[in-house]
């Protein structure tokens, strides 16, 4: 599943069976290893949900168990928002530019990032060394693995 596919997907609270918002963006950890949460509303103003709080990331909706939670918490310590990832310059470990980030592919069952899609082609997740203020840095010696089913 890709980040760009997930935009505008409804977020549904299972306990009340109501839609509480729409996904406007996902967030990952600084190492770009896994999806850590999602944002709702413009610039996340309708709240955020951490990955652990989600019940399922479905093709038509994202669900969570509201239980007796109060208003959705403002989570997000150490999160890298997709706004800081999509369009970000890609730099090789040797110091050469390799294009920019177009999309991110992740496993909706586990939240694991599988690959970063760049303008010059896909980059397997193990090749990503990190993302910072200037660029996403990539180890070019890591080969793509066999395609996942």
């Amino acid at each position: 599943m890709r980040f760009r596919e997930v935009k505008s997907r409804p977020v549904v609270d299972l306990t009340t069976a109501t839609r509480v918002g729409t996904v406007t963006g996902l967030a990952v950890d600084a190492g770009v290893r896994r999806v850590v949460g999602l944002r709702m509303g413009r610039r996340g103003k309708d709240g955020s949900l951490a990955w652990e709080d989600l019940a399922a990331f479905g093709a038509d909706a994202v669900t969570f168990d509201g239980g007796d939670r109060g208003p959705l918490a403002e989570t997000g310590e150490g999160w890298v928002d997709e706004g800081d990832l999509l369009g970000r310059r890609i730099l090789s470990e040797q110091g050469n530019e390799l294009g920019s980030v177009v999309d991110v592919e992740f496993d909706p069952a586990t939240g694991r990032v599988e690959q970063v899609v760049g303008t010059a082609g896909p980059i397997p997740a193990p090749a990503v060394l990190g993302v910072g203020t200037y660029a996403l840095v990539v180890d070019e010696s890591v080969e793509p693995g066999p395609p996942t089913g």
Partner: protein
Amino acid sequence: MTVLQRARSLIGLPVVTLTGDDIAEIKDVVFSVAAAQILGFTLNGRGFLSGPLKESLPWSAVHGLGRDAVMVRSADALQAAEEVLAGASPVDRNVIGNRVLTDGGTDLGEVSDVVLALGTKPEIVGYEIGGSENLRAREGRHLYIPLPDTIAVSGEALVVPAAAAEYIRDDLSGFGGAVDDFRARLRKEKP
């Protein structure tokens, strides 16, 4: 194929950590003539209003040199400038502007830049030279001479073996081949 780059074209490149943060930019390249190597770089801060940084980047802390950035493992790579520059006297440091003579006494011009082979183990492979009556480059081009393994320094002149002059090229892409040929010849001539 090794990519070659002139050291002074590194000026202005960002210094980036492996986690993607730009922590400085290259202000100037510091050379040691006697050791025929780069000692390191002086730095400016990032941003239009940033001036020179107190820290410098020693050559040993460079993780990789590319066309678009100088990579370091972390911000710890930057060190106090005096320590980085301590390896050479002021005269030693100034390879730019030195005259180059062959050991046969032919003047080959002045050093205007240093040519590096890029990658994770960057190294100096030659000099850019110019301004000699004896050599003429095609319109708008510079001349490049491969670095022999020993350079004698005589006053402000660098003395190179006459054989090196046979491998002078005026295009950077062809110069890579000339460097390889020159080194192969040096290896053959070793006792």
